[in-house]
């Protein structure tokens, strides 16, 4: 079950989207997310959906793979949709005990669900098509101006990229710990939510301890390889804008304009 979490993992294939500058993809994701909140009608979703389909096709990523990554979000999504459904006042369609379902509620919930799903889909497209290292340098240069305010931009970017690199390793470790605990009779599957949450404690503690140990070893290895922060560091893959980035930006601006003016 834990293996299925694919969110935030690089999908190594060759494509135009993969070759885009990480800054384009990062700013583009922000622009896409903004555009999602600019429209109020069904047509907007069609436009945004068409955009996502185009990008996914261009990126040569099987849509199934991305959808699988969305699965862990499903619970949150349903939860929020149900809340919106029941909390929106308006023209009443049905009533049951203390719950009332309104026409506005149905639409609001549907839109909200779609928006969130699109949002996660769009941002995972970024991480699927950009290696953590590129993403780091992209974010680093996008937020570079914050250095004036003494924000440790490089260090933060490095932390993010390391976190991404260690997700699969820690997942594997979690699986191992779970199996080890199960072998000694631990039960993670039965009982109510409270009992199940409590059963997670013997997994989390060893995981925490080992993460700290890993962090220590990694820091040592980085130091041994002359890492000393962002100063005086050169880049193996320096960022350079190409024509395709211009085209991407134009497409994104087109999307935003489209979202504003759509009926």
């Amino acid at each position: 079950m834990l293996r299925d979490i694919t969110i935030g993992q690089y999908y190594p294939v060759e494509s135009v989207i993969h070759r885009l500058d990480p800054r384009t993809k990062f700013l583009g994701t922000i622009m896409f997310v903004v555009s999602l909140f600019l429209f109020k009608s069904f047509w907007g979703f069609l436009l945004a959906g068409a955009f996502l389909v185009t990008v996914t096709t261009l990126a040569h990523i099987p849509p199934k793979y991305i959808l699988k990554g969305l699965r862990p979000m499903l619970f949150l999504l349903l939860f929020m949709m149900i809340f919106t459904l029941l909390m929106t006042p308006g023209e009443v369609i049905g009533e049951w005990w203390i719950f009332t379902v309104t026409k506005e509620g149905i639409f609001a919930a549907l839109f909200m669900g779609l928006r969130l799903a699109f949002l996660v889909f769009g941002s995972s497209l970024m991480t699927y098509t950009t290696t953590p290292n590129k993403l780091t340098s992209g974010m680093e240069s996008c937020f570079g101006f914050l250095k004036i305010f003494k924000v440790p931009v490089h260090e933060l970017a490095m932390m993010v990229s390391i976190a991404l690199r260690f997700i699969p390793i820690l997942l594997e470790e979690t699986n191992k710990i779970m199996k080890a605990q199960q072998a000694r009779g631990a039960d993670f599957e039965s009982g109510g939510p409270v009992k199940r949450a409590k059963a997670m404690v013997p997994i989390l503690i060893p995981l925490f301890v080992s993460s700290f140990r890993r962090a220590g070893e990694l820091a040592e290895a980085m130091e041994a390889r002359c890492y000393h922060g962002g100063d005086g560091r050169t880049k193996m893959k320096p960022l350079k804008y190409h024509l395709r980035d211009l085209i991407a930006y134009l497409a994104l601006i087109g999307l935003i304009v489209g979202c504003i003016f759509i009926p």
Partner: protein
Amino acid sequence: MVNFDKVTFEYIRRDEEGNVESINKALNEIDLDVKKGDFIAILGANGSGKSTLARHINALLTPTEGTVFIEEMDTKEEDNLLKIRQKTGMVFQNPDNQIIAGIVEEDVGFGPENIGVPTKEIWERVAFALEKVGMTAYREKSPNNLSGGQKQRVAIAGILAMKPECIVLDEPTAMLDPKGRREVIETITELNKKEGITIILITHYMTEVVGADKVYVMSEGNVKLSGTPREIFKEVELLKEYKLDVPQVTEIAYRLRKEGIPLPECILTVDEFMQCVRR
């Protein structure tokens, strides 16, 4: 190349008020002299101080007493730090915890990036390093999909890309399967022979040190024995005292000799053993 002058290192444990609770002498007046191009092996059981010694060569630790010189540079001097770490690369035990990037080639480029190598040269160095460890085919793959031995070779390439003169390997094979172990040992032997890189291999697998020029045996923070592998493996009894095992063939030959079968002292490989037995 690497010079230890009466190096002592103490792990000091303090209680909450900062008073000294206990002192653990991990290294005790160690003298060591490694020449350029040597293949040195340091053997020792757990807690013998061998990893502490390794960390001194890379200036990750500095001696409590005595001095470590890397090509005349004192490891205690802050200004020498980057130069020393570039000259003496270090490979650690756990392959997962020393790979920083999510793509093989980016990880190999991490070291050169840190020491400010121009972009074009980084690419040349990465290509060279991956070629040397035989991992060119995997340059765009994720390290997570590699075997332990392959990951360790990537780690070696990451060091190699910094153009070191010496590579220190701290139990690089401890977490690998036999195949991965062989890959790693073959790779470092070749680097030593063909590129003239000084190798300092720290291990507790005796079979891995057979190819070394000189072997040091450590126990309780002291160098107890030193010499060529042949000289070391003669001391079967002593090695056992230091909680080390000699290679299987050597052990068999030793026991047969003790039973009065005329075999030469210290046999290191199966082939050697077969030849002697046939005679």
